């Protein structure tokens, strides 16, 4: 379904169920060069199990209009505007990779309006190598292959988002290309990576949140290595936050390489 957010048409996948503001809501936020469809298994399940689901296409990505966010802070502001546009007083936020930083920053700003925060494949700082940043601008097709190799941990993933027979390597490449092509004005690949690389408010943000946090980390993640989330985990502990950590034996694409364990981690956490 579509909302008008900041004057722009914004698409949210609702998991095959109609949007119902009376139900508790969970907002899913994708990472760089992705869209709502990376969450399809987790969102479809949650939507059919008592939750109102909004899996957004960020502005300037695929079905959503508007200027693609140039920073984590700008994207976090958009998330607040999305909740307003949807008439939501409260929602859980789930983000993957870049989306995890956006969810984190949004939770720190929206305070009590966020009921739960789930950070999937998070790292802080989320530094991107100069080689990859340059490649995302100058040779994006080559860079797409680079991030795909860094993101995958297996050549034999279980039945995934398209069902059995899905080749998730190719699926990611095709989605990355489609998202890149969806915005002819801005290279959303480079812009998203720059936003990840330059975000500097992570520790302050995790200290400022008022909701419980779940970290979902891939033990074999080479894009955002599990150990790179430790500073946020330490800060959450130091700040007295309620938090949990789920370490899955997968790479950076937790949602497609381990769809069920990722779903269960989110589902059980949101049930608290």
């Amino acid at each position: 379904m579509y909302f008008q957010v900041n004057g722009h048409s914004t698409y949210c996948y609702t998991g095959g169920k109609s949007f119902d503001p009376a139900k508790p809501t969970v907002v899913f936020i994708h990472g760089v060069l992705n869209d709502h469809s990376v969450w399809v298994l987790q969102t479809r399940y949650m939507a059919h199990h008592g939750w109102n689901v909004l899996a957004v296409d960020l502005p300037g990505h695929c079905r959503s209009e508007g200027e693609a966010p140039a920073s984590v802070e700008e994207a976090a502001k958009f998330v607040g505007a999305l909740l307003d546009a949807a008439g939501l007083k409260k929602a859980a936020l789930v983000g993957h990779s870049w989306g995890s930083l956006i969810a984190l920053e949004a939770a720190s700003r929206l305070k009590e309006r966020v009921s739960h925060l789930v950070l999937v494949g998070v790292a802080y700082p989320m530094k991107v190598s100069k080689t990859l940043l340059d490649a995302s601008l100058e040779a994006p097709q080559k860079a797409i292959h680079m991030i795909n190799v860094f993101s995958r941990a297996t050549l034999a993933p279980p039945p995934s988002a398209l069902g059995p027979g899905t080749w998730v390597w190719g699926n990611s490449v095709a989605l990355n290309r489609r998202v890149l092509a969806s915005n002819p004005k801005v290279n959303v690949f480079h812009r998203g990576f720059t936003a990840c690389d330059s975000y500097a408010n992570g520790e302050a943000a995790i200290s400022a949140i008022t909701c419980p946090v779940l970290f979902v980390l891939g033990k074999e993640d080479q894009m955002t290595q599990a150990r790179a989330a430790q500073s946020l985990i330490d800060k959450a502990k130091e700040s007295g936050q309620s938090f949990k950590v789920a370490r899955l034996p997968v790479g950076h694409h937790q949602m497609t390489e381990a769809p069920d364990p990722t779903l269960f981690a989110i589902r059980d956490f949101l049930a608290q």
Partner: protein
Amino acid sequence: MPGYSDPGFDTLALHAGAQPDPTTGARAVPIHLTTSFVFESSDHAAALFNLERSGHVYSRISNPTTAVLEQRVAALEEGIGAIATASGQAALHLSIATLMGAGSHIVASTALYGGSQNLLHYTLRRFGISTTFVKPGDIDGWRAAIRPETKLLFGETIGNPGLEVLDIPQVSAIAHEAGVPLLVDSTLTSPYLLQPLRSGADLVYHSATKFLSGHGTVIGGIVVDGGSFDWERSGKFAELTQPYDGFHNMVFTEESTVGAFLLRARREGLRDFGACMSPHTAWLILQGIETLPLRMARHMSNTEKVVEFLAAHPFVARVGHPMLQSHPSHELARKLLPKGAGSVFSFDLKGNREQGKKFIEGLKLFSHLANVGDCRSLVIHPASTTHFRMSDEALAAGGISQGTIRLSIGLEDPDDLIEDLKRALRAAEK
């Protein structure tokens, strides 16, 4: 796990989609000969049926052994996923039936396998789907044949049996200008020789019976989606972009930005038409694919030697292989098929129909049968077998004469193959 670059073709041929069995430790892919899979709970059952969770329910829709084959072929074709079917013809039918219904139109190459010709020219017409045939090299003809109701362009990587190479980059550009996908039958090339998706095709299918299996033991097919075609932007495919009341009003393009075709093909096509592959067949094809790179290299080196021999033989009027400069697709083959233009080709004897018969019956190593892509060398007379339903005009349009003989070069010692051909040619000349 691989390192910092994409895994190579040979590695994928062995490993894509498979890992040691987590329960038994079996290293080879187990054959899951079971119709059904036990649900963990009522909630699990409901979630699987509603696509909230991914897994296996019933082997007509999916099966763990078949899924390995699907992942593997998708990996080798650089696609997003695949669906294995009962035959290559079932893969073609599944592709068409997923994309269109009565009132739709296809533009197809004239140089098609006879079975595909039958499906398009006779059978689909009965269901309200019409086809305009165009010579594969007639680029303007492809464009001119497109109508408002056209939903698909379709050709073979190298046409059967004349081996006209399909100019996939050009034909796909024409398809995309018109907002329709290009479907390519890549049976005769296999992903080892050509990856059509990389050249611009949107969907590719195989008769896996041929080179993928490679041993002449099973019938199977498989269709791969490249995930590149934008069904929404096209605006011509309500089957994928509008709610489908046959599956909870699912909008397939919302569920998957790049995989809507595969979602509908499996959830509707396998469910309703039911032309699924047996897990045992999938396993045998997987055995073949593990040696595909090795076999294809040998197929090609043997073919080069046989083509050179035949081209120099005084009783041979014409050899139709793109490796020869005389072939109309020679230059295009050099560009699109640098590893070779396949090991199935035809040639014409300088003789009458009776001499052609003598030639075929004089062969000892070559088997006279209706198949190609076997590890053993094969021979057939197309006009009286695979293409026998076609009129003389249609045969001529496909580059076939009454005296054309088709060979499929196998993996035998090349000197023995040449000796066998020599002997049969001698017998035919008498």
